């Protein structure tokens, strides 16, 4: 009898326990997990920023998570300093800008540690991701030798001020949509951490000014570093559009002169005669004297 009762109680207890847990799990099961893709980019002598994409795997498909509020923290040792927040757009992307690297502190290994946290909302669970990077510097400049133009770039680790050799740098000229590559696809820095790439002739640019970029793309320890060089070595762009000319396809304020003058003269002439004829009608009407 006693055993039966205790077994019964144990069973009830188990039942209740699982029911309680089930309800908790049920709540948690409704929310989806969220994943981050985070990239760090630094533009020399300018801002640094993080591009974060938040997505979730729903029904075996990657779905963008929009309007997710992310908080960025700078982790130094055991402490966490909040840097700010950003919200993802319709495509699940957001950009968090740091005006200056001085705003964050590195740890003892000169590595900056950033935590990105998502508190979660009604549909998604909370999540977080860490991003670590060191600061690198690229010094880029234009060199002209024997009337050939070169772009040179030197890659350094900022904290140790030592050059980084055997790294791949890209050299490109800024264009609309995508930048145009200059030189080889892979330019490896030499012992001095430098690459030098010749620039071909005749690249057009507004007023002949070209903006070159020397880029360390997506490195594991330094993120993406971009150095810009403005050089007036391009061929100036000439606006060849006929927008300001009088053409057959211009709007009416730029009608060809012949079409403005000749038809209007014709119309005036013919309608002048028509008006004269109508006046004649009234003249006839008025002169009724026999």
């Amino acid at each position: 009898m006693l055993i039966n009762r205790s077994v019964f109680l144990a069973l009830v207890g188990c039942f209740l326990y699982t029911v309680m847990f089930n309800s908790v799990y049920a709540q948690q099961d409704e929310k989806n997990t969220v994943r981050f893709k985070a990239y760090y980019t630094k533009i020399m002598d300018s801002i640094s920023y993080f591009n974060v994409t938040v997505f979730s795997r729903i029904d075996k498909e990657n779905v963008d998570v929009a309007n997710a509020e992310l908080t960025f923290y700078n982790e130094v040792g055991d402490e966490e300093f909040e840097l700010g927040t950003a919200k993802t757009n319709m495509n699940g992307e957001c950009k968090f800008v740091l005006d200056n690297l001085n705003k964050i502190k590195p740890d003892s290994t000169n590595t900056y540690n950033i935590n990105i946290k998502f508190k979660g909302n009604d549909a998604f669970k909370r999540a977080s991701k860490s991003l670590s990077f060191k600061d690198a510097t690229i010094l880029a400049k234009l060199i002209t030798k024997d009337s050939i133009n070169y772009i040179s770039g030197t890659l350094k680790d900022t904290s140790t001020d030592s050059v980084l050799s055997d790294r791949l740098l890209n050299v490109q000229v800024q264009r609309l949509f995508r930048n145009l590559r200059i030189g080889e696809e892979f330019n490896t820095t030499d012992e001095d951490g430098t690459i030098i790439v010749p620039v071909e002739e005749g690249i057009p640019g507004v007023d002949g000014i070209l903006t070159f970029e020397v880029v360390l793309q997506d490195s594991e320890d330094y993120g993406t570093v971009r150095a810009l060089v403005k050089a007036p070595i391009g061929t100036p762009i000439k606006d060849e559009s006929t927008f300001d000319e009088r053409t057959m396809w211009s709007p009416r304020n730029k009608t060809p002169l012949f079409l403005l003058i000749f038809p209007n003269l014709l119309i005036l002439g013919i309608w002048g005669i028509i008006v004269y004829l109508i006046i004649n009608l009234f003249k006839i009407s008025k002169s009724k004297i026999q």
Partner: protein
Amino acid sequence: MEDNTKNSRRKFLDKGLKIGIATAIGSIGLSKITGKLNAKNEKASGEKMELMTTDGTIIEVDASEVMEVQHSHDHDTKYNLREGMPNRKFVMVIDLAKCKNALKCQQACNKHHYITGEHAWLKVYKMQEEEDTAPYWMPTTCMHCDHPACVTVCPVDATFKRRDGLVLIDNDRCIGCRFCMAACPYSTRVFNWKEPEYGEEAEVMLNMHHADEKYNSIEYTGMPSKIGTVDKCDFCPHMIHKNELPHCVTACPNGVFYFGDKYEDTVTNGAETLRLSKLLKDKNGYRLMEGLGTKPSVFYLPPVDRLVDFEEGLNFYTNYNSVNKSEY
């Protein structure tokens, strides 16, 4: 007797005129006042907007809570919409050697422009000049000609050529005479013969667009299409504005479409970025119907050294259909 009638007539006219003017002024005043009142009321009550969440449910949100999307301000975004972006001339290069008639370009264009007629803006033709010559697939968009026949014949300036090379249509001005359609030798223009039917999803998207004034401009012509007007490929100025490539360029899985600025001498298909002059020289680029003198802005690269047989594209070829309505 006559005098009396004349007087009474005069008085009647006099009165009538006075009453008429008073009514006119009164009603104008009234309508203006009510207009202002209504405007005030709208702002106070807070406009509601319908939005779709990422899991497909439609919710109503107060307009003030909707965040503005960050746009790229890296280039000049302020310009006269009929004049176009300064210092740009947009061109497209279509590599016929790579086209396999996947039709992803057409689907993307149809979807993002809410095309509801029977005639897609982007057509992929099955071409074969003569029995002895090889067949190939040829996608055609609007050529955005430099000597556009369509713009020349428009009687009301509804279609216009911009400084940056784009030929666009103002479908608030178009009178539907279809003269431009008759003039275009590339058969690229379509007409909205009936009221465009959008699916529910598209309606929501379009309502969202209209809530933002930025979208109610000529750059977004064709979205939405209006009955009795002409539409055509627009080189997606709404995408260029955001520094993104037109939809057909990004949708193509084979990298057939290259797009760029001729003045910068650079075109890209998203993955490859090349110098335009070099590309045209190396691959012997040409334009369609060059002899007509229309000076199109779309270059074609001849279908040589093809990786895939022409016949594979026949799987997707539908002679009598180019717009799948089921997408909406």
